[in-house]
């Protein structure tokens, strides 16, 4: 599918180039970024890396090409590279590749591989230069399992719902498309740890919507999203079926001058049924509660500082006090923009629990309940 998208993107950009009569006609833009992280933890290994020994196993880069073909039509493609310890690696993924036709402010249509607008940060979570944080809240935006739900192959309609000016603005996004579970991230590792070795990644449909209200109070936004997805997959000795899972979220964000504050709450309900040859189907259900609150401050135009707290709980667990069923993380973070292109970040994490981000394959002696983690990053964007 990625090859098909790549071909479509090359054709689209090729047609743009062919249309141009002179370099002035061509409004191509190329942007990109690259980051390198260093992580050190005092106890467990985290995010698929050997962080207890100090790890430079986190590298990310992306490059995009955009063309505003006409006032209303835009085409573009972005390639993304992620290496996160044992995950990702030497593969360049098509992050998005789309045509975007904006009829007017009330209605636009995007088609192709389109980023999913869900919650505050889903569609921008793989753009590191956009954040003060080195790691977004793992409970909601886990860097090790984000690849599956970043984009969908289908259509999005978006725009603004007409409301009285005094009520602010109401923006919507609704989408319907296909997706596939990532084959080389933390979710794939969890499947493997359950004995589910898929020859080809399972996938399905992912309809959803997002509504965000820019309130009349300057800087205050409130919103809600619902992502749903089902999946089917073949196993060497059976089948895997996941009925429609519901991933609703509510969020709020406030920005005023040099201060920003935000919060998000998520509830995920997911069923899965595994049917192996000669055996009865086995159905399991998980219900997770996830949330965070964060705040930051621009100390100077180049220096930002902030903190957040995030919480994850397996609500359906028999023993919610087992560290495997929860995750709490207090985080303090700083970022310095060296110039318009280069930046550096440093972040401290104080983690209680192992509910997300920890894996058995690189913690063979078992997991301790608490982990302190230091993250340092440098990055470049243009």
């Amino acid at each position, binding site marked *: 599918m990625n090859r098909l998208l790549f071909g479509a993107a090359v054709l689209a950009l090729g047609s743009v180039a062919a249309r141009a009569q002179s370099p002035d006609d061509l*409004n191509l*833009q190329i*942007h990109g*970024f690259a980051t390198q992280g260093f992580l050190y933890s005092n106890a467990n290994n985290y995010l698929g890396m050997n962080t207890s020994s100090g790890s430079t196993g986190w590298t990310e880069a*992306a490059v*995009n090409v*955009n*063309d*505003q073909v006409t*006032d*209303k039509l*835009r085409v*573009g493609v*972005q390639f993304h590279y992620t290496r996160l310890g044992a995950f990702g690696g030497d593969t360049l993924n098509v*992050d*998005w590749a*789309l045509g*975007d036709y*904006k009829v*007017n*402010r009330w209605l636009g249509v*995007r088609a192709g591989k*389109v*980023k999913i607008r869900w919650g505050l940060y889903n*569609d*921008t979570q793989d*753009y590191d*230069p*956009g954040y003060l944080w080195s790691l977004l809240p793992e409970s909601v935006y886990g860097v090790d399992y984000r690849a599956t739900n970043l984009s969908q192959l289908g259509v999005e309609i978006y725009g*603004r719902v007409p409301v009285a*000016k005094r009520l602010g*603005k109401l923006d919507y996004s609704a989408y319907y498309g296909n997706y596939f579970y990532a084959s080389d991230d933390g979710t794939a590792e969890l499947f493997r740890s359950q004995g589910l070795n898929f020859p080809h990644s399972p996938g399905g449909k992912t309809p959803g919507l997002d509504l965000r209200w*820019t309130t009349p109070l*300057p800087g205050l936004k409130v919103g809600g999203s619902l992502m749903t997805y089902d999946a089917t997959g073949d196993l060497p000795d059976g089948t895997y079926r996941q009925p429609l899972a519901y991933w609703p979220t509510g969020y709020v964000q406030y920005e005023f*001058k*040099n201060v920003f504050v935000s919060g998000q709450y998520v509830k995920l309900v997911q069923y899965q049924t595994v049917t192996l040859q000669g055996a009865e189907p086995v159905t399991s259900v998980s219900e997770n509660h996830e949330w965070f609150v964060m705040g930051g401050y*621009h100390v100077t*135009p*180049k220096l930002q500082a902030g903190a957040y707290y995030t919480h994850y709980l397996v609500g359906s667990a028999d023993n919610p006090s087992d560290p495997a069923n929860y995750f709490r993380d207090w985080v303090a973070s700083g970022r310095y*923009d060296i110039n*318009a292109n280069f930046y550096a970040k440093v972040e401290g994490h104080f983690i209680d629990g192992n509910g997300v981000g920890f894996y058995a394959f690189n913690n063979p002696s078992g997991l301790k309940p608490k982990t302190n983690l230091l993250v340092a990053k440098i990055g470049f*964007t243009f």
Partner: protein
Amino acid sequence: MKKIGFSVLLLAAASLVGAQLQAQVIVIAHPGLKAAAVSKRELRDVFTGAASDLGDGSHVSPVLLKQGATHDEFLAAYLGKNDAALRAGWRGLVFSGQATMPKSLESEAAVVEYVARTPGAIGYISKSTVHDNVKVLSVP
């Protein structure tokens, strides 16, 4: 009481200076644009990527200055953001596949020249910069 009176005077003086600074920046557009005025809210929407048209439906594309006093004054007076926050917002839109980056030019003369020849272009310059062949929009 005297202290309060002095503070009020200082505040009034500061707001007068602020208004004076704001008056030094003017908003210009391609002469073909129908609108004669643009609201602060429309400016904020257009220059942060939240909208690509004005209230009357006219398509507009923003043009930024790369840096300088006029740029800083415009951001402070109309957008309530600093340069770093503005560009971070635009990059978020570009890297999530929602927009292209607005044109960003080195000098005010270059902004005038670009706006004059580009239908739909809207930019800002200082009042003292020569601005023939463009339309000046009032900001009520």
